[in-house]
């Protein structure tokens, strides 16, 4: 093994990610090469210092007032598990939510044509519209929550009047259309934070609708 090859492997060596064979080769080289051994010691010295950094730091000011101001107008999103608030579901509220979403969808349409394809569980072909890990993670989170609620609804929908189910399905179609349009807009303008916010709020509307109807079905 040459020095160049050894130095290329030093990061993996100190990280413990080499195979046994590679490890052995590097160790043999280090045993006979003072220069590379010095490199290794320097690397370990750096990592030892890094391991000592404090886990906490204090900001120069109290950040809470600013946070409190921003969250005062927003209630936490409902728990998908554990404590839940009491919902007062009504068809009028659903209609209002759908109307808002139609408006959102219309707004998104101004920016770009629709892209993406919604699956029955709410998942979407991710790479088609964003590579943002935060958005993709959020998307997966919503897809999971949506799938759970859809599954719950599936088992309970027999308890609901057919006209209610028809109204809900119509609302979901509207919301999914809005989601596709927002994703399309994000694809065109990935840096726009308003679009990310709109995507999250549209997802949340879908969850709200599903939660309300699931709760209604369990109450009837």
């Amino acid at each position, binding site marked *: 093994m040459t020095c160049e090859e050894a130095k290329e492997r030093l*990061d993996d*060596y100190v*990280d*413990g*990610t080499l195979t046994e064979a590679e*490890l052995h080769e*590097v*160790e043999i080289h*280090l*045993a*006979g*090469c*003072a220069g590379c*051994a010095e490199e*290794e*010691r*320097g*690397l*370990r010295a*750096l*990592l030892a*210092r*890094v391991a*000592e*950094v*404090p*886990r*906490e*730091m*204090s*900001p*120069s*000011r109290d*950040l*809470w007032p600013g*946070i*409190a101001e*921003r*969250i*005062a107008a*927003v*209630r*936490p*999103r*409902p*728990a*998908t*598990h*554990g*404590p839940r*608030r009491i919902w007062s579901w009504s068809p009028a509220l659903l209609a209002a939510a759908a109307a808002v979403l139609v408006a959102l969808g219309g707004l998104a349409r101004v920016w770009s044509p629709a892209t993406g394809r919604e699956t029955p569980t709410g998942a979407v072909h991710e790479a088609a519209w964003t590579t*943002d*890990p*935060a958005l993709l*993670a959020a998307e997966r*989170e919503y897809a999971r*929550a949506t799938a759970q609620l859809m599954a719950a609804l599936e088992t309970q929908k027999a308890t609901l009047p057919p006209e209610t189910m028809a109204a809900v399905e119509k609302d979901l179609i509207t919301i999914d259309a809005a989601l596709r349009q927002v994703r399309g807009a994000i694809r065109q303008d*990935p*840096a726009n934070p308003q679009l990310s916010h709109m995507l*999250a709020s549209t997802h949340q509307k879908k969850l709200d609708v599903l939660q309300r109807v699931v709760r209604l079905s369990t109450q009837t």
Partner: protein
Amino acid sequence: MPRSGPGPWAFKPPSGLRHLIRVLRTAVWSEPAAPLGGVIPLVNEEDPRAEERRLVSRAQAGDMAAFEELYRRNVGRVYALCMRMAGDASLAEELAQDVFVRAWERLGTFRGESAFSSWLHPLTVNVALSERRARRRRVARVMTTDDLTPFEKPTRTPGPEASLDLEKALAALPPGARSVFVLHDVEGYRHQEIAEMTGVAEGTSKAQLHRARRMMRETLGT
């Protein structure tokens, strides 16, 4: 020719060391902070997580006072991560605020299967990475890595002088290399995980780490 000093066989890195470090780091991140100057009691009267669960439940129901308590307990760790990822104090403060606003909005997704602090950790990483991506797109934004003043004054948890030097060196790294260095060497994530979080190839993550370590060593003289 055999070199002098302890041989490389003196420390044989076990396979999966990074994972172990991450597990330990997560444990440290998850543990409730010990009171300043105090000691951790050997016997707890009550499961420390029980009080946290109560706070979370109250916050999920809209109780801002409970959420403020959760903020007070976690802001030090959230801010430290933001500070190291951003390399700028005022930006880190903005990011930490964003983290808690987002946490409030998403409280409903917290199921109590882990410590609240563990739930906050990936959220914090995501907020910091999202901001960096957005900043990269805003060409007009002034680079902030020259602002080292936040490290001139020791914080509530002051480290030795060497620690401050390290923080300065960290803040001076290019943003991409800094993110990978913080995630890998400080927080203990693996390259595969970093690649998923940042959207770069695993090889790019390795190259960024190599670059960051080299620059850190040059700055610190190790």
